[in-house]
């Protein structure tokens, strides 16, 4: 050994002369010790790098999270300000129109003429300023293609004419950056998780290397001499495994998702919130392809796929699920996709109880539709986990109700004991923050799906239907020994002569024989249902269903009729009912008192929202809006050649002066408006009879209507005054091939 080398004792010095032949082994072990130490140093370096990756990704995630929140708040605020500018413009345009209408239908004067011109001028200036302000803010402005000029298509896209849920489309567009930052936060969290996993694996490798160094060292001691080979082999084993372990995880490290995945996700979020579910799925597909472990994208794609499986009305930018209700069961193919994505998101580490609840519902529906008890058992397990987690959370009462009903429904379908879980679910409906009718509607829809798929359970389903409805009226109830529901001291009531008259915008029922029903003492609940053309169950329309409130039932001869609630008015976004089978179940004091079904035959219609009037109609998708600027205070939709159409006029109540509350004055005004509109468009227009009172024109209590004929067609007009003092005159007309009455009835307040 050279004199400058470090002083390492010879093995012979430690063990004696008789061990001299082992000197070579000792030196090799010493080299192994140092090599193991080097390996440990390298692993420690890799561990430090993993820790750095984790810490930086963590910091990045936190930063993106904070920026996402802030971007959302700022975007909401700025978009709200732009929507306010648009509202200001609209209010000025309405004031100009009101002045013009006052001039036309009221006691006009030079002052009213000047007023109309004044507000028109102010509106023009407001529009010019809005464009300049939006430019300085770096945001698009909102304009109405039928009224504002110039209005580029990209800006008109955000207008109430083209956005069925105005101003959601505009707000969602502003939120794009926030969604993108949220996705970048998720990606950074994923990178941090990868870094942490690597750190842990390197720590395990370091531990093994430490053990290896100890065993090598022990093999050199006099005490370890006797079993040196064993110690060396064991140490070598630890070192080899540790190095292999570290190398494997160094090469295997997870990749960081590219930023383009975040962009695709943000596009998907905007599309989802704009009801463009097909586009949303395509965007999420891209995001998941770029980042296969993107849990939120998987979760949201599942939701979009689920909704896509529900029949939709119309196409393009106005496509909406039809009916709009949240309780329809989608096709089994859509459920398959949604369940696969939900399960994948869960397996990738999502702990969202909402995701679990969705997965439970997916499995329940699939199990029912395919008669698969394995799916039903899984649904039971998953829904129970979801319910447990949701019960610990605030602001998740609706999800909890659905999860608890899913548990009870799975038990019912499996033949297990279900009474306790049904009572628990019904008890959840009593929470103050629950959308009660959506919960009841979903439960009744699911029960009917069980009836359709498991006919043997029909009697239990019928009993549970009443129990669920009664639970809302009286709280959770148990059945009496003979299977009846308590009627709170009133004898069971049976209706006769229940009839339905649905139209694309409304649902009307009449009861000819109400029996001993007394609206003062009895609680009536109407559950409107639409027959799902995909799975065959009766799906409740929660928007127009539920306990009938005061004023919801009108005397009609010896019986009653409903106040004809407008589905268009009550659904969000405004949606028209599709053609198909409709049914109403009328429950009195929690017991089924009457029921009726009827077909609704009409073409595919879409809710067309008026711009100048807070109203909408159900019009064929190819009808064109009226150029509002040409007719102050009026909005309408027409066929391409104007052979049929619907128009609504709003006129300030002050135009009638003191005669506002006079039905004759309202009818006179209606005839004046109709005559003014028809003079150049509908030759030969004459009234078919006198005007009559109606409560079905826009649900006005003082409404009146009148039938007309003209050369080659007919016209129906109506008039009524809103609580805010505006007079609405509506008319629909067309040749015999057009259902003018349905169009007229579909005119709904928003």
């Amino acid at each position, binding site marked *: 050994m*050279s004199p400058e080398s470090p002083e390492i004792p010879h093995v012979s010095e430690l063990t004696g002369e008789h061990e001299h032949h082992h000197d070579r082994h000792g030196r090799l072990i010493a080299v192994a010790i*140092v090599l193991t130490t080097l390996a440990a140093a390298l692993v420690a370096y890799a561990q*430090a790098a993993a820790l*750095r990756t984790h810490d*930086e990704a963590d910091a990045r995630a936190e*930063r993106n999270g904070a920026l996402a929140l802030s971007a959302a708040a700022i975007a909401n605020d700025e978009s709200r300000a732009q929507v306010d*500018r648009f509202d200001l413009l609209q209010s000025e345009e309405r004031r100009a129109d009101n002045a013009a209408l006052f001039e036309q239908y009221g006691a006009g004067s030079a002052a009213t003429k000047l007023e109309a011109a004044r507000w028109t*001028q*102010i509106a023009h200036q407001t529009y010019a300023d809005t464009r300049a302000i939006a430019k300085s803010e770096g945001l698009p402005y909102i304009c109405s293609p039928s009224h504002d000029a110039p209005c580029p298509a990209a800006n008109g896209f955000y207008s109430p004419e083209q956005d069925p849920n105005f101003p959601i489309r505009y707000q969602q567009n502003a939120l794009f950056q926030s969604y993108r930052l949220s996705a970048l936060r998720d990606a950074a969290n994923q990178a941090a998780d990868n870094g942490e996993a690597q750190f842990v694996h390197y720590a395990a490798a370091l531990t093994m290397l430490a053990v290896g160094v100890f065993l090598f060292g022990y093999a050199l001691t006099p005490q370890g001499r006797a079993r040196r080979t064993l110690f060396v082999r064991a140490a070598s084993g630890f070192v080899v495994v540790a190095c292999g372990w570290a190398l494997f995880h160094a090469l295997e490290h997870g990749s960081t998702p590219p930023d383009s995945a975040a962009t695709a996700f943000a596009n998907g979020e905007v599309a989802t919130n704009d009801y463009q579910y097909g586009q949303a799925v395509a965007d999420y597909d891209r995001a998941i392809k770029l980042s296969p472990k993107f849990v939120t994208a998987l979760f949201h794609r599942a939701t979009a796929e689920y909704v896509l499986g529900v029949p939709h009305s119309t196409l393009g930018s106005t496509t909406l699920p039809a009916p709009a209700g949240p309780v329809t069961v989608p096709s089994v193919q859509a459920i398959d996709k949604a369940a696969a994505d939900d399960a994948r998101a869960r397996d990738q580490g999502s702990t969202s109880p909402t995701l679990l609840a969705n997965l439970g519902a997916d499995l329940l529906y699939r199990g029912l539709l395919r008669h698969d008890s394995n799916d039903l058992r899984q649904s039971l397990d998953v829904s129970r986990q979801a319910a447990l987690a949701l019960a610990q959370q605030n602001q998740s009462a609706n999800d909890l109700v659905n999860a608890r009903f899913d548990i009870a429904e799975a038990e019912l379908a499996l033949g297990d004991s279900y009474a306790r879980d049904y009572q628990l679910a019904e008890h959840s409906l009593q929470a103050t923050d629950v959308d009660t009718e959506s919960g009841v509607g979903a439960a009744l829809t699911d029960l009917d799906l069980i009836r359709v798929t498991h006919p043997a359970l029909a009697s239990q389903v019928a009993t549970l239907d009443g129990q669920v409805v009664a639970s809302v009226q009286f709280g959770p109830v148990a059945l009496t020994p003979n299977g009846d529901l308590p009627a709170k001291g009133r004898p069971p009531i049976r209706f006769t002569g229940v009839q339905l008259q649905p139209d694309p915008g409304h649902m009307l029922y009449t009861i000819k024989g109400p029996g001993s029903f007394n609206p003062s003492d009895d609680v009536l609940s109407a559950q409107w249902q639409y027959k799902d053309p995909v799975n065959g169950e009766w799906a409740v329309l929660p928007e127009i269903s539920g306990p009938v409130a005061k004023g919801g039932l009108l005397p009609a001869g010896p019986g009653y009729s409903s106040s004809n609630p407008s589905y268009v008015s009550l659904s969000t976004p405004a949606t028209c009912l599709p053609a198909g089978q409709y049914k109403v179940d009328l429950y009195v004091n929690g017991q089924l008192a009457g029921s009726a079904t009827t077909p609704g035959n009409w073409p595919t219609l879409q809710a067309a929202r008026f711009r100048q009037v807070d109203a909408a109609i159900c019009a064929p998708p190819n009808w064109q809006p009226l150029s509002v600027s040409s007719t102050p205070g009026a909005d309408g939709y027409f066929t391409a050649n104007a052979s049929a159409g619907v128009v609504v006029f709003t006129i300030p109540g002050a135009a009638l002066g003191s005669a506002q509350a006079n039905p004759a004055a309202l009818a006179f005004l209606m005839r004046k408006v109709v005559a003014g509109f028809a003079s150049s468009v509908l030759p030969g227009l004459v009234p078919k009879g006198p005007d009559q009172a109606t409560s079905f024109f826009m649900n006005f209590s003082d409404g009146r209507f009148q039938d007309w004929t003209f050369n080659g067609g007919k016209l129906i007009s109506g008039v009524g005054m809103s609580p805010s003092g505006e007079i609405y005159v509506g008319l629909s007309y067309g040749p015999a091939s057009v259902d003018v009455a349905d169009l007229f009835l579909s005119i709904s307040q928003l």
Partner: protein
Amino acid sequence: MGWRASLSDEHAVHQDELSRQDLVQQQQSELADTQLVDSYMTQFGTFAEDSLLARSLRQDAPRVDHNNAQTMLSEAQVDLNLARNIGRQIGFTYPAAAPYVNPDGSYEPQKGSAFDFAQTLAFVESADETLHGLDPDQLRAQARSQRLLGLHLTGIAALFVSALVFLTLAAVSRGTRARWFASLGGLVAGVALVLFALVDLF
């Protein structure tokens, strides 16, 4: 070496924490400033409407009968006063970003631009003292460099261990081979020392 690396990591964690605090404060202030400017923008809408209404009423008054004219002039005065009050708030606070205002305090769209959102926001933010001195990005960059320093120091420690390997090999070898190993060990240790000095000093 390990001690120095550990110190660097600890420093990086602290810088990250400071960066986080700065970022939250910055976001809150920016949001409040944006909301303020949005409220100015809403006020501008009323200001412009009242101004134009006042002018239009005054112009139209001579075209109607005496009673109506008096009413219109009276309304014009009310609208002008309202416009003037709002104009004071948005115009005098941030004059360079405000639209052109007539001597009577009303909006004059023909002589200037409309409300400039971006410029007003810039004014509001520059006047917002809570934003001054906040630099979360710089703190975050410092944390990154501290983490990198810690990593470099750990790497240099590994180099020292490499030197130890060569010196051990020299110790268990003989003749020329031993000298080669020793020289190599010395060289690696020297490089590690130089790198340590470079990393630590710069």
